[in-house]
């Protein structure tokens, strides 16, 4: 059984309209089982309204050595942050 088992990354949407958040991973042989295993492991306490599973090997990640080139240039660009606005009262999830 174990030779076919792949690792899947699990993303849970806690509420309609919110983004799916990465919560961890599961082992499974196929996509149906991946979804069911994710349900068993990560939504036992009523955490979710939707689950995504993605094969870990299908995720393309940036390399840590690229960190400088990828992220440092935004350090001094204050104007990219919406800090000049006042938040309307009562707005959530911004």
């Amino acid at each position, binding site marked *: 059984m174990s030779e076919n088992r792949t690792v899947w990354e699990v993303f849970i949407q806690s509420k309609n309209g919110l983004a799916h958040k990465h919560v961890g991973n599961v*082992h*499974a*042989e*196929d996509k149906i*089982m991946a979804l*069911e*295993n994710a349900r068993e492991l990560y939504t*036992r306490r009523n955490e979710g309204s939707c689950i995504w599973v993605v094969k870990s090997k299908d995720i393309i990640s940036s390399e840590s050595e690229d960190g400088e080139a990828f992220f440092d240039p935004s350090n001094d660009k204050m104007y990219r942050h919406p800090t000049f606005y006042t938040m309307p009262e009562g707005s959530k999830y911004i």
Partner: protein
Amino acid sequence: MNNELLTYTLRIADNSLILGQRMSEWCSKGPTLEEDIALSNISLDLFGQANGFYSYASQLDGNKSPDDLAFLRNEREFFNQQIVELENIDFGNTIVRNFLYDSYNFLFYSSLKNSKDDTLSALASKSLKEVKYHLRHSKNWLIRLGDGTEFSKEKVQKSLESIWQYTHDMFSMDEIDNKMYRLNIGVNNSNLKVEWDRIINETLIEAKLVRPKDGYNAKGGKNGMHTEHLGFLLAEMQFLQRAYPNAKW
């Protein structure tokens, strides 16, 4: 009427409790970590369902608590179907047993949901959501195992042949069943057979398994007649309450 309703409710509760206890035996022994949790979750669902039906039975009884009903009755006083007390043996065998039973249980609760008895109806609606998932779990695994390797196929086909004799009693109707059905409280079990056959046949085709021929019909669970397996299960489950009466967590 109260006595019959009590027995009827106990039958449902006992099915859930005994299968829940069987499934709990998988805890820490599942084939994988994920499956271990899945099987234990199913067990907990079933204990929850049993608790609901025992609470109602306790009310109807007026004397015994739900715990008394679970822990202080003997084999012959349990009214569960024999199929739920069968030993797990191995993962494939457990899946076959659960698939055959889950298919029935799904149809049973779907029908009990319309009961005139408000409590039974509410308990059925609540249980139905969980049982839908149990069926999905056992059905998907049966398809994987049947349409898996030669070895897995052979094993589940054998389990199917040996468990089949315990499926007939799911659809039987005795005096109590008939009376509850006439009062629009209980389910007409024999009416569930057509739909059960459809689920079973479709799934077996997809799983590339062969439907066993009907033969010997093991029956009597609902009247307290059991296989030799139930006594051992009860001995383990009831040990603490029997050895240390009224022990509390």
